[in-house]
């Protein structure tokens, strides 16, 4: 009833090419963004610190991987490693040049992981599919080793961990022990919105089409004049940039400190699962996937003890973690079988239904 395209005529190609051609979609997006900003003022630390901040950061990482895997069709198992490069680069930069604002370093640190991503993307010239996936495992294990065994990266801290020093923006602490969850949330939200906007621009233009072209039919793309190698490397660079920034944000705007184990292969897999469940080749799907995979265990942690407690069954944290593995694994198989385009596709179908509601067609 309220979600209709009737009467909205597009009078120019520019209007038809808009990312959200429907007025209702644009209004909806504006409402969501406003609501997201409004959340900061609830001052609910649990909601912000334990749910929203990590959800947004994982969404950003998932967008990064989705650009590579979902759009350009290059499967990567090295996401954790690339995120780590961003985090460690950011740490080195901001401790070496404390006078420069940390936000600058967070955004620049992505370029370091982009460079590393390109380096490990070089084999994509000659190999694809699971061969490439194994090549990215090399990145994962090598980088994880480097974060552990090269003390220079963590400034020779005895703990082997990197920790967020106090840094401010206009006098307000944005990272470090005294930065409040609200401030960090606002910073994360703004960065994620900005970077999502850029990603959306890229995938809707020439570059996005070239990525999808090499994904769907690389030979035809090459015969049409698309340079495979450059296009693939660009995908690696942009994807790793996003992962790197997400990694830096993960450590400094969420955990406050971390060691190399944060960037292990399980991290890579969970980001990949977010992409698969959310929907390969869909930006909004990256948010759905991150929400499902990240928020589900929190939900389980609250729901299961409440449900099973009365029956005298004790549900410990490790059981929740084990269940999480099982459920995620089963969900992956389920989605690949039933809806390979993930939650994003379900969302699309729901919108389609809403468009004609209350009629079936």
């Amino acid at each position, binding site marked *: 009833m309220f979600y209709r395209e009737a009467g909205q005529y597009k009078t*120019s*190609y*520019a209007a*038809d*090419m808009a990312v959200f051609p429907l007025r209702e979609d644009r209004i909806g997006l504006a409402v969501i963004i406003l609501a997201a900003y409004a959340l900061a003022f609830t001052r609910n630390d649990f909601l912000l610190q334990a749910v929203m901040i990590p959800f947004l950061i994982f969404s950003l990482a998932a967008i990064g991987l989705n650009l590579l895997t979902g759009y350009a069709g290059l499967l990567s198992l090295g996401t954790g490693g690339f995120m780590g490069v961003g985090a460690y680069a950011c740490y080195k930069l901001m401790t070496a040049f404390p006078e420069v604002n940390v936000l600058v370093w967070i955004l620049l640190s992505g370029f370091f992981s982009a460079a590393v991503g390109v380096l490990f993307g070089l084999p994509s010239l000659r190999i694809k599919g699971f061969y490439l996936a194994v090549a990215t495992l090399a990145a994962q294990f090598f980088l994880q080793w480097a974060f552990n065994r090269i003390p220079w990266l963590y400034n020779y801290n005895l703990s082997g961990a990197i920790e967020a020093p106090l840094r401010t923006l206009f006098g307000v602490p944005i990272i470090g022990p005294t930065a409040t969850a609200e401030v960090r949330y606002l910073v994360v939200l703004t960065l994620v919105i900005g970077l999502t906007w*850029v990603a959306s*621009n*890229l995938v*809707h*233009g*020439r*570059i996005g*089409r*070239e990525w*999808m*072209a090499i*994904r*769907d*039919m690389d*030979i*035809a*793309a*090459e*015969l*049409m*004049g*698309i*340079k495979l190698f450059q296009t693939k490397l*660009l995908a690696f660079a942009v994807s790793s940039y996003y992962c790197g920034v997400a990694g830096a944000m993960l450590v400094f705007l969420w955990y406050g400190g971390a060691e190399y184990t944060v960037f292990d292969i399980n991290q890579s897999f969970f980001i990949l699962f977010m992409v698969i469940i959310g929907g390969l*080749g869909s930006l909004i799907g990256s948010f759905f996937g991150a929400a499902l995979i990240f928020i589900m265990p929190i939900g389980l942690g609250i729901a299961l003890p409440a449900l099973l407690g009365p029956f005298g069954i004790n549900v410990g944290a490790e059981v929740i973690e084990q269940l999480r593995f099982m459920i995620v694994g089963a969900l992956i198989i389920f989605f690949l079988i039933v809806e390979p385009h993930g939650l994003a596709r379900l969302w699309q179908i729901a919108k389609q239904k809403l468009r004609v509601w209350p009629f079936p067609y």
Partner: protein
Amino acid sequence: MRAPDTPILAKGDVLLAVENVSLSFGGVKALTDVSFDIRKGEIRAIIGPNGAGKTSMLNCINGFYHPTEGRITFKGATRRRMRPYEAARGGIARTFQNVALFKGMTTLDNIMAGRSLKMRRGFFWQALRQGPALQEEVEHRRVVEDIIDFLEIQAIRKVPVGKLPYGLQKRVELGRALAMEPELLLLDEPMAGMNLEEKEDMSRFILDVNQQFGTTIALIEHDMGVVMDLSDRVVVLEYGRKIADGKPEEIKRDQRVIDAYLGVAH
């Protein structure tokens, strides 16, 4: 749609010359000492029984395979080991025997992808999608819409091509090749698996492309009726060798061609 940029060659000049080309994979010879030319503005058919090396020939012309011997001259320039994207940049476009569309993309995006070569705005503007990048996008969209009108596929503009019936997929593929504004268009069995009506439509598009835009066309086709009606000249391959070359009516009478197609008693 604009005509191809500043034709250097006049109609009837040799656009592409294939000289003594051989191609082998390991010990298997796909092509042996094949020579022929394609002239500006003509429709040139390449025919032959299955496995005669027709598709391999097209693959050589647009740089996907590299001839083991011989050379290929396009627009006066001889190339050794050209990469496919160089051929594309030079103005050679192509459709495929088994439709090679980008299945996850819409008709519009498929044809827009054909414009990639012509788009100039770099990463920075693409990332912002404002100003010059948007302007460029609109400009090319206009060209693509012309192609969509020309091929009468307006209704499927925003349908992912994987969901389209085969005949329409072939049409979209032609559109994608046309979007490159090629000087030489290679069509690999554009009518395979089509019914009569679809074949008539496709023939009309091919003739229109050739006449309206002056695009030179090289065409592989099995339907002899279509070949004889459409093409200006025909080259016949059998077992990787050229066995005949000439006007359709000459080919029709050529004894070797008849033997190749009907079989000959040994």
